[in-house]
């Protein structure tokens, strides 16, 4: 468009057109023309004023827009919801379509070319090899055989170091059965513990609730087809394990050590024709690993493994995960294995009847007696500190540090993540988040696995308001069902006035109908409750960190862990600040309409805000939880708090606070947060822990 005016530019009387100005301001003019306009603007007042007018208009629009968008509430759980939806999408579209499709492509190519095999084999092989290298083999670190034999050797050394060794493996097994047609994917999981004598035949496998399903029948594997579909969670998990065991037997692999290089090699070594790749990779939690893939070329019989993968820790070639693709009559059955913990212990440390019949049992009392398991040399304190911090970061990445009943316990020789999760999906989140962290042991159960047993409430969790499952839902439900809030009238008044002034020049919607005001109240209250709960979650996480990392503890942290702790703290404080800002924008106007604006700012009560890490977090937590309590009182109809003063000394005769007093308290707490949070954010900039 601006090109039209090019010819005029030579004239001394030239001024940029409006279009040229706009293009110039938006950086859409070619450099040469832009510099001409810039020079002209320096010289010409009237054009400069014109351009400033445009800028002012844009500025006004931007201000308007940002304030309008700022007023919006944000659903704080969004990332978690998105992750879950994405996971479902990933699974729908097939988890490893490339490998499967590719294998089929290969099989197909060979089948069709078999007639002229002698002639074309060379060419086909060359093309396929080229394809393979283009597609997959970017980096070759070592050959698969080399890698596996080194891994076998390292485990053998580990076993030799322990007298009367027993290998203990705690595994999460997931089975995805490709349905024949468009039926949904059959997706089941099991968590198993295996104790196996690597030098003998003794073995014991245990899973939650298996005593009921396995019965006293036998230890022999029953083909899964002959077993009626069990209804219980434990029964289904049991079948997952039996199916896996069967697969290992059919493929002549060592099912007693499912995740081991030796077992993998037993299958792989017998394949005559295969494709393989080894590639270094980094897991989402930052763990360095090597991934090995093996794909059998040509058709494999039903029940055989068509492809498999093994994930090895890069540092010690210890296998931490694996997958198996087993050919079924139709489609494939995929197993994913992930290690939750691994130890080589001495038989002496175990209960004497550990290998007593039956070999398949319920997981019950701890089987370890006596002292700490002696596997490798004990990790150093700073190694354990680093492990713990990695675990915290891992959990933070999947938002598992915001009140779920999950705790991290550090002992002299390892770090344990214990807890209870709602679903299998969540379990997988955690397994992925923590996979490959050295010296880490996962003891996490799903609610279904835990069965009838009540949720494990760790001492740390008992007093926490957020330790119960999904309190957000209950209080929102409360807000919806509760017919009358303590400030119901004021809310109605405020929102309906608000509405009547709302009607824009366009004249949309004629004022407030009863229904819409109620709807607005509901919207406002549920947003308020959600936001204050989200704040509480972060304040709680911060408090936990502060309690865990006393200044003494911080001084023992390796630099990298210290940096990670800083990141964690910063993340939580920023989230708090953000939630608090949104919460304030949402409720303050309403509260002001009830209690009036406070005179001047209440800076006096900020107290010792200058206190150092980690002193500020408990007080911060108290303020945030006060906000949350008042929020549920005012916006969700929880009982009004009792007055703190002792005008009525009787034990039962305490009087409740008035709603107006609650509103004033809430405003005071908010203004405290408004001054303290930004100050905190400033304080945690940069290396705030390392500087001291």
């Amino acid at each position, binding site marked *: 468009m601006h090109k039209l005016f090019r010819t005029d530019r030579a004239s001394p009387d030239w001024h940029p057109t*409006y279009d040229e100005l706009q293009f110039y301001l*938006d950086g859409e003019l070619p450099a040469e023309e832009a510099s001409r306009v810039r020079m002209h603007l320096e010289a010409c007042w009237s054009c400069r004023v014109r351009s400033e*007018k445009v800028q002012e208009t844009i500025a006004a629009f931007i201000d308007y827009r940002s*304030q309008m968008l700022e007023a919006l509430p944000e659903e704080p759980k969004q990332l978690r919801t998105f992750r879950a939806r*994405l996971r479902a999408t990933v699974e729908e579209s*097939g988890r490893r379509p490339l490998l499967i499709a590719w294998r089929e492509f290969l099989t197909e190519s060979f089948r069709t070319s078999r007639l002229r095999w002698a002639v074309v084999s060379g060419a086909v092989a060359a093309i396929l090899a080229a394809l393979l290298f283009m597609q997959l083999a970017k980096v070759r670190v070592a050959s698969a055989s080399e890698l596996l034999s080194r891994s076998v050797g390292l485990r053998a050394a580990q076993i030799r170091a322990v007298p009367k060794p027993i290998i203990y493996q705690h595994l999460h097994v997931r089975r995805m059965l490709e349905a024949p047609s468009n039926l949904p994917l059959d997706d089941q999981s099991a968590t198993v513990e295996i104790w196996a004598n690597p030098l003998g035949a003794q073995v014991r496998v245990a899973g939650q609730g298996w005593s009921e399903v396995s019965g006293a029948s036998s230890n022999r594997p029953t083909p899964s087809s002959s077993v009626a579909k069990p209804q219980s969670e434990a029964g289904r998990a049991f079948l997952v394990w039996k199916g896996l065991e069967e697969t290992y037997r059919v493929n002549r692999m060592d099912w007693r050590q499912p995740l081991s290089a030796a077992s993998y090699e037993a299958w792989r070594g017998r394949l005559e024709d295969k494709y393989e790749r080894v590639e270094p990779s980094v897991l989402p939690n930052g763990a360095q690993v090597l991934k090995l893939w093996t794909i059998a070329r040509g058709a494999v019989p039903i029940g055989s493994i068509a492809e498999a993968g093994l994930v090895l820790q890069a540092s010690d070639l210890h296998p931490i995960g694996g997958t198996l693709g087993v050919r079924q009559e139709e489609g494939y059955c995929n197993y994913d294995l992930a290690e939750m913990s691994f130890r080589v212990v001495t038989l002496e440390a175990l209960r004497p009847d550990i290998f007593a019949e039956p070999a398949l049992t319920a997981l019950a009392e701890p089987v370890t007696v006596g002292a700490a398991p002696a596997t490798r040399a004990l990790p150093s304190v700073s190694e354990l500190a680093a492990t713990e911090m990695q675990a915290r970061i891992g959990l933070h990445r999947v938002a598992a540090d915001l009140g779920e009943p999950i705790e991290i316990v550090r002992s002299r020789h390892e770090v344990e993540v214990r807890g209870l999760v709602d679903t299998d999906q969540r379990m997988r989140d955690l397994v992925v988040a923590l996979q490959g962290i050295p010296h880490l042991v996962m003891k996490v159960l799903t609610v279904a696995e835990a069965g009838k047993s009540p949720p494990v409430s760790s001492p740390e969790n008992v007093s926490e308001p957020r330790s119960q499952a999904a309190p957000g839902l209950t209080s929102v439900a409360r807000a919806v069902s509760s017919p009358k809030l303590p400030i119901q009238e004021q809310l109605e008044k405020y929102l309906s006035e608000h509405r009547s002034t709302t009607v824009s020049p366009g004249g949309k*919607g004629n004022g407030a109908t009863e229904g819409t005001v109620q709807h607005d109240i509901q919207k406002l209250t549920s947003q308020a409750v959600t936001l204050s709960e989200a704040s509480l979650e972060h304040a709680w996480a911060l408090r936990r960190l502060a309690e865990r990392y006393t200044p003494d503890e911080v001084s023992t942290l390796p630099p990298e862990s210290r940096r990670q702790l800083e990141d964690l703290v910063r993340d939580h404080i920023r989230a708090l600040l953000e939630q608090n800002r949104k919460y304030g924008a949402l409720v303050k106007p309403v509260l002001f309409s009830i209690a009036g604006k406070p005179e001047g700012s209440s800076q006096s009560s900020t107290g010792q805000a200058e206190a150092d890490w980690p002193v500020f977090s408990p007080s911060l937590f108290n303020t945030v939880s006060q906000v949350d309590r008042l929020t549920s009182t005012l916006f969700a109809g929880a009982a009004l708090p009792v007055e703190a003063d002792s005008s009525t000394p009787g034990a039962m005769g305490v009087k409740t606070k008035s709603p107006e007093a609650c509103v004033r308290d809430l405003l005071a707490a908010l203004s405290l947060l408004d001054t303290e949070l930004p100050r905190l954010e400033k304080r945690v900039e940069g290396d705030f822990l390392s500087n001291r």
Partner: protein
Amino acid sequence: MKVEMQSRAEMFSLEAELVRLSQDALKLEQKVTELFELLRGPIQRYLVTILGNAAEAEEATQETFLRLYQNLHSGQRIRNVRAWLFRVAHNLAIDRQRTSKSLDIMDASYAAQLLTGSQHLGSSPERRVLDQERLGRVQSGLAGLSAQERHCMDLRAEGLRYREIADILGISPSSVAEFLRRAINKLMRALNA
């Protein structure tokens, strides 16, 4: 932990990375999650201005990124991820938008807050009154924009270039320039009225 995506070079390396990752479902999933964390803000903001409803915008934002995964996974090559996301989000929003009034409703409820003085606009009372008046004028000016003009303004406000906006809205870059020109003119008139 926050990364800003800035240069073109980064964009190209992102494209290359996505092509590489599209082969590996797990890595791709991880990458799409990262992109979601990085870019959901702008996408959601834009969707809110069209849909006028935070919850719906949030849902559509997630849908947009799920489509990103599906498209990459099926081997589609995406050159400019940000613009691609905006385009998909835009189309989703237009499909969902049942009435064209949502925007006005959004603006109207915001205007109500302006009138009740709920926003922390300026420090002094005089400043606040001035700001409120100015924002009120913007609001009435925006009421006079066509949908396309408003989209162009919102997309430009997210830092997209004319060519990208053109791509997203399926119009020519010169139309983008023209819409922006008209929009700014209308706003300017409202501000100086």
